[in-house]
């Protein structure tokens, strides 16, 4: 399997004296949905910032499609799409203009853009909102706009930060379906979330972050094997890790 995202011994944070991330190593392969799980403050957002190239690693590397961001910022960034936790929309652009800007920025040709756009709109029941400004959108609708922008450009890698909060059931289902769809097309997805039941159901592998280190990672079966309990849920493993119990030592 090709690694779309490869993080090797990443050490990083805001200050060299106090690194937040310690020695993170993981991969996201093509056709794989990986869940990034951890408490508030475990380092999920910092990890994501390093992947996006908003922060520089102190040591270690982050590669997308085999290249680091230093080899070419634009090329690196056009391989990935990011769906932030808090939707960031330009107040002065309509829904349609957001989609168009994303399509143009990622170099999508016009025909593809015009083909994909109506499909996404109907999936998220937003057809009648094309000319609306974000000021009139609820939080969930804004989230939908971010999701549509990401899936419109169909990059190799999706980086998704807590997508479920605020989305309505139709939105959640459409989002999950799209992720499965993109996986089968060969994209890799890294998704940070607290909704563990959904994560357990949809993610192929998990990375459990605790205090800036990877406590455990692997498929559900691998996690269960390490804990030594074939029926335990992701929720229970996660709670146990979060309490600092190091369940694999039991």
């Amino acid at each position: 399997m090709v690694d779309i995202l490869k993080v090797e011994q990443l050490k990083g944070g805001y200050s060299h004296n106090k690194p937040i991330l310690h020695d993170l190593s993981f991969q996201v392969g093509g056709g794989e949905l990986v869940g990034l799980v951890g408490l508030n403050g475990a380092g999920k957002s910092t990890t994501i910032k390093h992947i996006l190239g908003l922060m520089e690693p102190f040591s270690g590397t982050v590669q997308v499609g085999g290249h680091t961001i230093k080899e070419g910022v634009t090329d690196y960034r056009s391989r990935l799409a990011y769906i932030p936790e808090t939707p960031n929309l330009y107040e002065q652009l309509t829904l349609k203009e957001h989609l168009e800007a994303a399509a143009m920025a990622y170099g999508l040709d016009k025909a593809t853009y015009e083909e994909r756009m109506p499909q996404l709109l109907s999936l998220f029941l937003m057809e009648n909102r094309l000319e609306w400004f974000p000021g009139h959108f609820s939080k969930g609708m804004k989230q939908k706009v971010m999701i549509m922008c990401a899936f419109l450009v169909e990059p190799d890698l999706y980086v998704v930060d807590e997508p479920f909060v605020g989305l309505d059931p139709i939105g959640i289902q459409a989002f999950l379906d799209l992720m499965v769809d993109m996986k089968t097309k060969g994209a890799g997805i890294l998704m940070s979330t607290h909704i563990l039941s959904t994560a357990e159901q949809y993610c192929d592998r998990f990375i459990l972050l605790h205090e800036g280190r990877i406590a455990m990672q692997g498929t559900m079966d691998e996690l269960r094997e390490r804990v030594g309990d074939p029926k335990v849920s992701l929720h229970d493993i996660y709670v146990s890790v979060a309490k600092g119990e190091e369940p694999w030592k039991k």
Partner: protein
Amino acid sequence: MEKIETLWSRRLSEHWQMTSRYLKLLSNSGFMFTLYILVIGGGYFYQQWVKGLPENFPTEWILLVLFSFLIIRSPIRTLLRSADLVFLLPLEDKLNGYFKKASVYSFVLQSIPLIFVWAIALPLYSHTVDAHFAVYGVMLLILLLIKGWNVICSWQENYVLESMSYKGVRAVVSLIFIGLLLFEAPWYVLVLLALIAIGLTFFLFQPLGRSHLLKWEVLLEVEEQQAARFDRFANLITDVPHVKNRIKPRRYLNGLTELFSYGTSSVYKRFFSKTFFRFGDYFGIYLRLIIVGSIAIWMVSGEWSSVIIAVIIIYLTAVQLLPLWNAGQVEEEPIALYPIPERMRRKNFLAIFMRLLMLESLLLGIISCLVGISIPYALLILVIGILFSLLFTYGYVSRRLQKNKDIYE
């Protein structure tokens, strides 16, 4: 919790503390100096200009527009905050006193520009309409009464969501009243109109407050708009952290922004042009400066002076447009959103910036032609304006923007 009666005075003193801080900054900046120059220079030319005016100059019509605008626009400054929607909502009944004080405050505050305009127009009025000061003095009193009536009705309009028709009635009555006043209609016509206004107050506007509930969100919106107006003004001089900009769709201008073809290199051309048209007050300032420039060129009517005025106006526009670079950004990490090099973003910004200045040069050139500047000098305005736009954009702005760099660039 403190008593509800003292809430207004506390809010007001807090508000003025904030405001005076910015006013102090304003008075210390070069802006005030420019303003002094404008006032002194403008005053001189104004005197000269008035002396040369014919008797049939349409002073009344000009004053009608100015006074009507200042009188009919009567938003109530409530000093409400968004948290009040939660905490003060249960006290709606007890807030009558608070809102009364707010209405009085709004009246006083909005009367100041009215009195200013009245005073500035004094020489104009006495030269072209009526030299008796008493007539013009009484007029101010009546104007203030109409203003007061507008504030009272404007407050009542806050009880309904669809207040356009009420605003319409108020605007039409005020307009007719001011018009009749300026054209010196007989006193009984004015009395009749005053009676109509009083009748409307009791039978149309007052019942709103009795039969509806206060629309808090409208109040808050009006308050925030007014706060934003001042903040935006202060923001021209200094950085106001909490500036919340409003957007105006201005859909009729969409065609212009769509001129930039579909493609990666157009993303930020479209972005900046749309931001310019819709966000904050950039488009408004641009238009206003062109209008001010045109009026100045028309009033001074000199050949070289019109060129100098044009360049000053273009320079002022350029300075006002600079913050467009950061305008309308999302809160965090704008660069993460689109895989477009910062270099390209800068290039696109400069392209839009320069085009706006060049367009302004062209407009000023055409307008000077229309107000009687000879064609060679109008052409000179165009050429010097374009040269200035080029130099300012690529000599100054581009260097300033170089400082913003992506960490990986």
